């Protein structure tokens, strides 16, 4: 999913759970900013494609696959906060709506999946998420 979708879902979660302070930072870190892991693959991308634009390059790292919960759950216990787990699960769920190959259990297993609702065109799913969460955010904001 795009950065906008993740940001809208995270903002809705933040409003719903009434998060502030450290939990607010954790929510945006694990709900949205985790996408910055894509930067780790920039050197490999430039090495292969130079400045050419290549669609559907595998930018994902295990940091935003379900396997990441292996370290996020202990982190939650350490921080005594459920926020990292909730928001990374939200992030992963959104990404699994996009039908590019994913490796949920790498590096322990090379199982590959394309996620859910793969038959629905990507644009529709993206628009549905953006519309729904924009509405939720506005509704929550006006209810305050």
């Amino acid at each position, binding site marked *: 999913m795009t950065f906008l979708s993740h940001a809208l879902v995270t903002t809705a979660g933040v409003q719903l759970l009434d998060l502030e302070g450290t939990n607010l930072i954790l929510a945006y870190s694990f709900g949205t900013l985790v996408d910055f892991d894509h930067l780790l693959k920039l050197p490999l991308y430039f090495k292969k494609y130079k400045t050419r634009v290549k669609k559907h390059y*595998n930018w994902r*790292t295990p940091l935003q696959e379900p396997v990441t919960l292996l*370290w996020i759950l*202990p982190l939650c216990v350490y921080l005594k906060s459920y926020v990292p787990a909730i928001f990374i699960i939200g992030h992963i769920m959104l990404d699994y709506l996009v039908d590019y190959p994913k490796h949920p259990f*790498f590096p322990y297993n090379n199982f590959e999946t394309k996620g859910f609702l793969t038959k629905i065109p990507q644009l529709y799913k993206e628009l549905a998420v953006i519309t729904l969460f924009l509405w939720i955010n506005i509704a929550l904001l006006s209810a305050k």
Partner: protein
Amino acid sequence: MDKHSPLISKIDKLALPIAKIVHRNLGFSPNKLSVTSFVIGSFSVVAVLFQKIEIALGFLLISLIFDGLDGVVARLYNLESKTGERLELVFDRANEAMLFLALAATGYAELRLAILAIIAILLMTTLRDRTKFDPGFKRTILFLGYFVGFTLALKVIFWVNLVGFIINMLILDYSRQKLLDKGVSQ
């Protein structure tokens, strides 16, 4: 010897006289050294349970020396084996777990932190053999704990090993991506 890093080779050279004594003169095989290290490490756990921290750290130091020697003897005398590696790994993790839990049981540290530190080390251990990356902050940090508190020591162990686990995941993913980019299927 050729397959080991220059640092390990240097350590082996430095430890050669001691390794000769324990292997040739005292008849210790690498596995016997691992077992001895574990037994002495267990004495350290008992000392913690009796709240004799200085004695516990003394036993821990001796245990760590034996732990280091098993690898040196194995390399110098070509006695390396998968079983030996696994044995050492299981003994090391078991000794760490017992030590951390003993510290928690005697009130030197929080039980939550002890369990988290064990989990972080175990996570890191699951991947380190594939990447050869291990930050190494485990039992040795307990010596620091004597001065700064065992709670802080366990926090350091937790964080370093958790980050170590993440780095290991990323190293493996990067290596896989390199292969995929070259057209090698996994």
